[in-house]
Every structure is written in C-alpha cells, then in structure tokens.
C-alpha cells in the first residue's frame, strides 16, 4: 500500500471532467475503517430474457441499422477468480451515434429498431455474451472538432466487484484524441475489444473483451 492517495487526472478538452474532477489529493482510508468502504451489491438483479440481443428491441422485431456484432468475455478479479452471476448493464449509441436517452439532444438520427440498452449476467464461470449494433462515433466537441470514438458502456456489479468502463474498438481514428484514453495512457489497450472469428453467430463482427475488476475491494472477501 502506498502512503498517499492519488490525484485524479482531468481529461484534456473535456469540460465536464474539468467541472467535476476533485482537485484535492484523495485521502487514504484508515485501516480500522477499510472494510466499511467495500460495498457488496445484492444479487437481486432484474432483466428481461431477450436483453442480451441489442440488435433488435425484441425477438419479434426487425434488426436495427448498422453492423451487428457479438461481444463475449469473462469478468474476473485481479486474482483471477471469476465474478460469477454478476450483472452487466450495457448501453451504447446506435449506428448514427445517437443514444435513445431523453437527455441526448444531439439531433442525430434515431433508429426505431434500436434501444441500445440491455442487461446480461455472467455465468458460473464468469463468462458473458451479448449482441449489439456497432455504435457510431459522434462529434462531442463541435467547437474544436473532437469526436468520441466508437465505444460500448459496461457497468459490472457483482458481490464486492464494482466497475464502470467502456469497450473501445481497435484502430479507430478517434481513439488517440479521446480524453479518457489519454488519461489511461498505455493501459488503454486493455479497454479495446479483440476481433475474432464470428463463427456460427448471426452477426457480422465479433469481439472478445475480458474484464478484470481492479482494486482491493473486489478481492476483499476472497
């Protein structure tokens, strides 16, 4: 354990990051209080059985526009233990870069066959799978021409493991200028999905994205 907490980085060209990132060095948690800082998410998750397929809004609806993809992977702690029966909340923009969210005022095209939100669970081995439409990149800062690269948001909740992250796509032109990618530095590659053969799946592209939940919280009760 180090003797100092971190100073959090502010994402370059990201106004919200400037407005909301704490400026003070994070405080260390006293040992006597450390366990109280380990939230354990109760396993009372809800989801509809069709939510794993986000290429359509329901099994009897047509496919959304764009490239259907499969994403598979495992969720583990840093010790390698699978995070079993965890909740993955997944959300992403449609083919045109628009979220079906009441606060997305971008004016980009909506697709009536695309919801872009779904929940799946890891199995007893920590493995997960979902289908999605490959999301469009979108212009996040029109004033300076900065784009957000294609990405899929993932939120992991399972026992003492809690992580919100994003899966990026390899070799995208906008990856290098993304504020959060810049903060990650060389470790950005961990957040990029690895292309693989589609196999028999009814999709056009497939990616592996293995997730490792970091920090002492995730392994606290192992």
């Amino acid at each position, binding site marked *: 354990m180090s003797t100092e907490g971190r100073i959090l980085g502010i*994402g370059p060209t990201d106004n919200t990051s400037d407005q909301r990132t704490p400026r*003070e060095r994070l405080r260390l948690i006293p040992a*006597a209080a450390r366990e109280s800082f380990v*939230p354990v998410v109760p396993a009372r998750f809800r989801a509809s059985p069709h939510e794993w397929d986000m290429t359509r809004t329901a099994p009897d609806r047509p496919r959304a526009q764009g490239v259907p993809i499969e994403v598979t992977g495992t969720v583990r702690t840093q010790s390698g233990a699978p995070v079993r029966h965890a909740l993955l909340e997944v959300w992403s923009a449609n083919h045109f870069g628009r979220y079906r969210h009441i*606060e997305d005022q971008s004016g980009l095209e909506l697709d009536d066959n695309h919801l872009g939100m779904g929940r799946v669970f890891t199995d007893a081995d920590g493995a997960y799978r979902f289908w999605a439409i490959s999301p469009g990149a979108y212009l996040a800062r029109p004033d300076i021409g900065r784009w957000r690269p294609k990405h899929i948001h993932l939120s992991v909740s399972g026992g003492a493991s809690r992580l919100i992250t994003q899966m990026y796509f390899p070799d995208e032109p906008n990856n290098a200028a993304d504020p959060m990618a810049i903060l990650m530095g060389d470790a950005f590659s961990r*957040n990029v999905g690895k292309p693989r053969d589609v196999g028999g799946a009814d999709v056009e592209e497939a990616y592996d994205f293995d997730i490792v939940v970091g920090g002492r919280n995730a392994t606290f009760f192992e």
Partner: protein
Amino acid sequence: MSPDAKNALPATNEDTCGPYFPIYFREPALEDLTRVDAGVVGQASGTPIVLRGRVLDRHGDLAHGAILELWQANAKGVYRTPAHGDDADIDPWFDGFGRLRTASGAYEFRTIMPGAAAGRAPNITVTIFSDGISRIVTQLFFEGQGANATDPVLLAVGDDAPRLIARHDGRTANGAEVYLFDIVMAGDGETPFFDDLES
C-alpha cells in the same frame, strides 16, 4: 498470499459512465431501502431517514446525470457482506445497498439510520459516478452522534470533518428523520474523497 500475488492480473481501466446512463435501468427498491418490492410483506428494522442533498460541480452548478450508490450497515451496525452473512443480527429485509441516477443533480434516498459498527460512528459510504469522472468515493456521518468525535475516518480528515457530516433537518409527517448532505465534487468546499485503490 501477498497483496501483489492476489492482484496479479492487469485491471481494466475504470472509465466515465458518460451523460447517458440509462434511466431504463432504474430500480425503485434501491432508492427506498425501507421497503421491499410492491405488495411484499417485509420491513427493514430501524429508524426511517430521508437523506437528501445536491451534487455540485466546481462552479457550484448542479451535476446533472450523476449516479449515487449507498452502502451502509443495518440498524444493528451489521453489514451484509460475505464476512457477516451468518450473523444473528443480519436483517432479512435490509441489504444496505442503494442506487439512483439524478437527472437534475438533486437527490433523495429513503433508508434507515445505520447502526454503529464496533469503534465507528454511524456512516454511509457513497460512491459517485458521472460524466467527466470515473468512480469517486466518500463516507458521510450524522449530526449529533457522540461517536463522531472518535471515528477514525472523521479524525483522519481533521478540519474537513464537518464536510462529511449530514445536517439534521427535522422530521417528516411520516416520522422519518431528515438529513441534508451536499456533495461538492471539486473546488471551494470540496468534499473529502477517499482512495480505495491505494488504501
């Protein structure tokens, strides 16, 4: 096993949740921890409280779209963790985990007053996700608790301790004690945040 050996795999980077965390994922039972699901008989033990406040950015503006997660002990001071799963004082109707997304930046949870664990003052751990940041964490306390004077977390933050203490603001018509707690994410009056990766 040494901590290094236990943390051998490189961790996926935490990343911002962005502005569009789906409201679709909302779970009302996680915003009111005093009750279970509609129509189900069952009641958490303890004193009902309303915890409300604002999440503010460094300009004093409301931080719209923030996600807040609570983690607390039950009325007897016991957390529902793998370490305490068989404790006789576990409350079958209380998990101690809450979550909401605030569109405006103002928030309100209903829960029960946490009991004091050994050596601690009653507290609630608060995790915040929002656009522009990854996860940040703090812990709030309650005005008027004698144990605040000796709590290790409040002692550790020294002169900043008042920024972690929720103010008591009377009682609702339903008998819930109201506590107010504003979170200042950055700048003047910044709330003390804690590093659970380096601690």
